[in-house]
């Protein structure tokens, strides 16, 4: 369905994506990578907004750039917010559907159905500027799927949503992906994982790993992560942690912070909780280190380059 062969995209001297070769069959796929990795550029190539500087991009067997027959089969939901604040979701979605070739009447019917699908019927006549971020995301999604595309491409669709809105949107997209193809870009694995999608991991403009989400998850789980624990007795907690075999490294930061390197962050968190109760240690924070995501991707890069 989507085929990129040795695709490189340059913006002047800046590399968007670098020598990417990937084939995605019909079905649901996730594009995972940190901010600036090249996800949006890759989606731009797939949705015909950009031409590759080198290589070949094909969607449904044809080049997408400037190709109406391919574009008609794609629904794209970009990452940016809708900044057209005075129109209503109904007007907005209907406008986009009309641009896909439908008459005004047909477009209005489709817009109504799509807004119902994303549970936005009640707010369909309110100006977009008065809607919450979650509602605007849903309006954007309705605009992408109202013309019934064969491939839905979503760029960071869950960004900035609260957990409830995120859950609703995940359910909606998951349901949609049962009968159509889907490509979702995100920098958070846990956002893509529930979709049961095949994953493509992109970092530093290159594809560094791809495969079923279970495979990528086990790869990532095996990647050392750091957990930062702020408590009143970090040295006593370190002793307890050392009794188990899930810690790979320990270091102290200041008087009350313990940073633990581990391959089993979940198990470790459970042990810390139990220890805090049993040993009466006042734990104020247990947070994964901010660098852990970069660490995961860094690990994947080193694996990609043949490292251990």
């Amino acid at each position, binding site marked *: 369905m989507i085929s990129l062969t040795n695709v490189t995209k340059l*913006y002047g001297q800046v590399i*968007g994506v670098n020598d990417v*070769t*990937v*084939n*995605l*069959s*019909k*079905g*649901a*796929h996730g594009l995972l990578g940190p901010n600036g990795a090249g996800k*949006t*550029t890759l*989606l*731009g190539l797939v949705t*015909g*907004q*950009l*031409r590759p500087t080198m290589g070949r991009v094909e969607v449904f067997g044809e080049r997408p750039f*400037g190709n*109406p*027959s391919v*574009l*008609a*089969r*794609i629904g*794209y939901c*970009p*990452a*940016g*917010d*809708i*900044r*057209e604040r*005075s*129109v209503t979701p109904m007007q907005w979605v209907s*406008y*986009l559907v*009309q*641009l*896909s*070739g*439908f008459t005004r009447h047909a477009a209005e019917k489709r817009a109504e159905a799509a807004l119902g699908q994303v549970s936005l019927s009640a707010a369909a006549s309110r100006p977009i500027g008065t809607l919450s971020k979650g509602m605007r995301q849903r309006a954007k999604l309705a605009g992408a799927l109202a013309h*019934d*595309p*064969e491939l839905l491409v979503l760029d960071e669709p869950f960004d900035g949503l609260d957990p409830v809105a995120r859950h609703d949107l995940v359910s909606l997209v998951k349901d949609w*992906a*049962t*009968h*159509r*193809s889907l490509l979702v870009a995100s920098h958070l694995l846990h956002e893509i994982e529930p979709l*049961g999608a*095949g*994953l*493509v991991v992109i970092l530093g403009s290159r*594809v560094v*790993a*791809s*495969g*079923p989400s279970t495979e990528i998850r086990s790869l990532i789980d095996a990647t050392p992560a750091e957990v930062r624990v702020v408590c009143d007795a970090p040295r006593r907690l370190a002793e307890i942690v050392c009794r188990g075999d899930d810690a790979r490294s320990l270091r102290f930061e200041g008087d009350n912070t313990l940073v633990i390197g581990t391959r089993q962050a979940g198990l470790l968190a459970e042990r810390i909780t139990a220890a805090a109760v049993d040993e009466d240690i006042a734990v104020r924070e247990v947070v994964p280190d901010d660098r852990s995501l970069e660490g995961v991707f860094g690990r994947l890069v080193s694996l990609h380059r043949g490292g251990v």
Partner: protein
Amino acid sequence: MHSVSATEISPPPVERIPKTNLPRSIATIAEFQLRRMLTRSRLLVAAIGILFPSAVLLAVGRTAGFPLDRDLAALLIYALIPEAVCVLALLVTMCPAVADELERGTWIHVAVRPGGRRAMLLGTFAAAVIWTVGVGTLALVPAVLISGTNEAMHVFFLMVGLLVLSAAGRGALFALPAVIVPKRAMVASVGLALVVEYLAGLLPAVINQATVSLRLRSLLVEGMGWRRQIPAEMQLLIDSQPASVHVLAVFGLVTILLGTAVVIVEWRQFPPSEEI
């Protein structure tokens, strides 16, 4: 090579997406753009554009006395409406054709629709022409009445014709900077108007044949029957061909300029980031 197979799915019967209808898409975008123009600030600017020519005519009339001389009235109305008001209205409607869409985040939604790019450009052009002709026509009514000319209907319809040609020609001209330098479209369009329309257009050379201003001046002279009164040296600033040739020349220019702008907007890539 990375190959990813996801769970194979059997697509449900999909209702065929209709083929793109460019005229319908252009009309859709023109309607959307016109609705977007109905803001308080835009309406205020339009009101100023409508009243400004009448104010100038009132001021001239207080000095020269009413009714104004037929030729003076026609010349003033022409300079104020098919030239000044028209160019100013186009600068605020046509110039931000692409940049405004990029800033508002609508471009990306439209560019991924089949034929969306050209429909965006042509729809915005249509909206700009409709808006400009509307504002200009509303400005003409009081201006012609205030001038007190005894050929009010003739002057009015001549000016409406010139206004339509001016809006279409200059709108197409401003489409080029709008797609080539979207972020600097306004400045580039002002420069283009000054250099092409008001410098090259006044040069007594072949280059002025490719300007809208030469065609409009020639049509004004023809329409007002001034040809024989114009001194010989001023004859160089007009073209003596029949009116139909001038009208066709303007439409020819519109076709060439808009065609070029469409080719550029279809071919050009607007990166999905903030930098354009």
